[in-house]
């Protein structure tokens, strides 16, 4: 599998500016009864959508969005990779939030979905712009470290390791890890519990 270089994501946005959205809400546990990730996209935010007909994921005007705009501690809770998989298969190709839970952030990077952060006031401005005009194009620019929309540009943060991996196209960590098999064996040989705790 060859990775592609991801330097920017362009598209319309879907605003969901709430805090502490957990992965059970992104994809309820009953949809994890599966052996592939296929078909998860249609169940993204299933229960929230059922309980709120006005939920952004129910609104036709946000259909086809590529950039999810959300709040603080997004993706907290379970480690289920099904959560970013569901968003990605729904059509999300980048996420802009105030902050992320760490396992979720790592899962996004592993799938080639940039998850960048913006200051809260800029997130609120971005949300207002998208609410006013859902057709507005958003650019998440990893090289420039910015999110742009209309006349606006805001500074976006992204962990340097994720930025490097996505821009270089080397977010397939499996290949990188495999490449060091000799070093893995050398390290293992120095670990006490793998060698009788230093016995003869």
């Amino acid at each position, binding site marked *: 599998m060859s990775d592609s270089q991801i330097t920017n994501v362009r598209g319309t946005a879907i605003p969901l500016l709430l805090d502490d959205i957990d992965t059970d809400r992104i994809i309820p546990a009953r949809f994890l009864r*599966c052996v592939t990730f296929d078909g998860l996209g249609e169940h993204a935010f299933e*229960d929230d959508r059922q309980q709120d007909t006005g939920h952004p994921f129910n609104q036709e005007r946000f259909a086809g969005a590529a950039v999810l705009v959300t709040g603080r501690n997004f993706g907290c*809770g379970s480690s289920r990779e099904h959560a970013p998989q569901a968003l990605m298969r729904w059509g999300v190709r980048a996420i802009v939030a105030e902050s992320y839970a760490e396992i979720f952030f790592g899962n996004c990077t592993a799938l080639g979905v940039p998850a960048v952060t913006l200051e809260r006031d800029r997130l609120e401005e971005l949300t207002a712009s998208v609410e006013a005009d859902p057709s507005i194009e958003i650019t998440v620019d990893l090289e420039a470290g910015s999110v742009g929309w209309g006349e606006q540009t805001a500074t976006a943060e992204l962990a340097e390791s994720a930025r490097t991996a996505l821009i270089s196209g080397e977010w397939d960590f499996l290949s990188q890890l495999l490449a060091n098999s000799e070093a*893995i064996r050398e390290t293992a040989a120095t670990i006490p519990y793998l060698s009788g*705790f230093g016995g003869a």
Partner: protein
Amino acid sequence: MNQPTASSSGSRNLFDTVWDQHTVGELPSGQTQLFIGQHLVHEVTSPQAFEMLRDRGLGVMCPDRTLATVDHIIPTDDQARPFADGLAEEMMSAIERNCVEFGIELLGLDDPRQGIVHVVGPELGLTQPGITLVCGDSHTSTHGAFGAIALGIGTSQVAQVLATQTLAMNRPQVRRIEVTGSLSDGVFAKDVILAIIRQLGVQGGVGFAYEYTGNVFDEMNMEERMTVCNMSIEGGARCGYVNPDAKTVEFLRGLPAVPEGEEFQRAAEWWLSLASGPQATFDDDVTIDGTAIEPTVTWGINPGQSVGVGESIPAVGDYEVEEQAGVAEALEFMGLESGNPIRGQAIDVAFIGSCTNSRLSDLREAAAVASGRRVSDGVRALVVPGSQQVAEQAEAEGLDRIFSEAGFQWRAAGCSMCLAMNPDKLQGREMCASSSNRNFKGRQGSPTGRTLLMSPAMVAAAAIQGHVTDVRDLAEAAS
């Protein structure tokens, strides 16, 4: 003895010592390639990982350092195969097939060692001080109770560890959380971690590993330490740990995966040498007064939204402006009134179980409350032991009879109603007193179901009274 790490007299903390010991090198992204000493696998987050290996023609690098079990999807009453739920049956068949094909030992339902993955690892002695341990499950932080670096990972990472026994990780900072003093009667490990998350917030730990230290943790047994470390993730921390001590060593002595004889002596010496030294430095320090911690109950939709059992449900205006929308959403979803005491809140369901609180000491504490009493009319009450071994030990002590006579259902080991990927679910807007770890919207299987997190003893008390109760009141009534 080969002792390549700093001793406890040094200025290093356990996390840094163990991290450096397992560092293979630096990746092009700047992340650390970290060697993983133990990999635990379950049925929900592994099928796609095995498929990734198949796609690339890869095998499992260290099958002998990999163990699989089944817990999330299994029914806790009728376990006859095929399962009534065809999707669950498909997942069960998949892990059975995958473990045979890739040469991994699987503790299936017919194995007396089967149980919740975070109960089984410690029980078998696989979880040891100074190791790195991963599992495709956020509550892997549980294993930090032994002084391990224990990390929950996603499915792509499960594939990476299967194939390479390593992981790409950014090194977190380390925050020491000292809880001083001693806990009052009726206050348990669950209350300690709920109090920590209430104070530091559900995202307060992002970027950190938590070291739990101080007299309260010194006094805890290993199961109590597991309860605290289990919910580190609910506080946003990447992992949590307690330094190994004499209790850790004694717990491990004689367990199946633990060495014996002279090798055990060498192991114990190494384990104890790993503990953060008196001069160890940390990126952040927090001190909490353990004597002030009350039995704690959540009122909202994340584990940080909690109060002491003597307190009232907060109002939106009690919070900073940026918190208020979330608080209002939580109060509305829960249907709770600001200003009302949490004590007396009626419940429909009581659940004792989960990787947080399903071990023998948890069941003993709950049984002590339930003994000689009856579950309130109209309350559905379940006790789900964390593993077949826990069930067997509890039955040997007669705890199952105490629960059954009190009107609790005594079930088979599994994750059950903690996340309801199996037949155990809330119905409609039921309110559940639960010893589990998450009160997220819909977490217990009904999209509108509601969860009040508390200790197992508090769940038992709520089941008996039919409403949230200060367990200390029942203890007084009995004495």
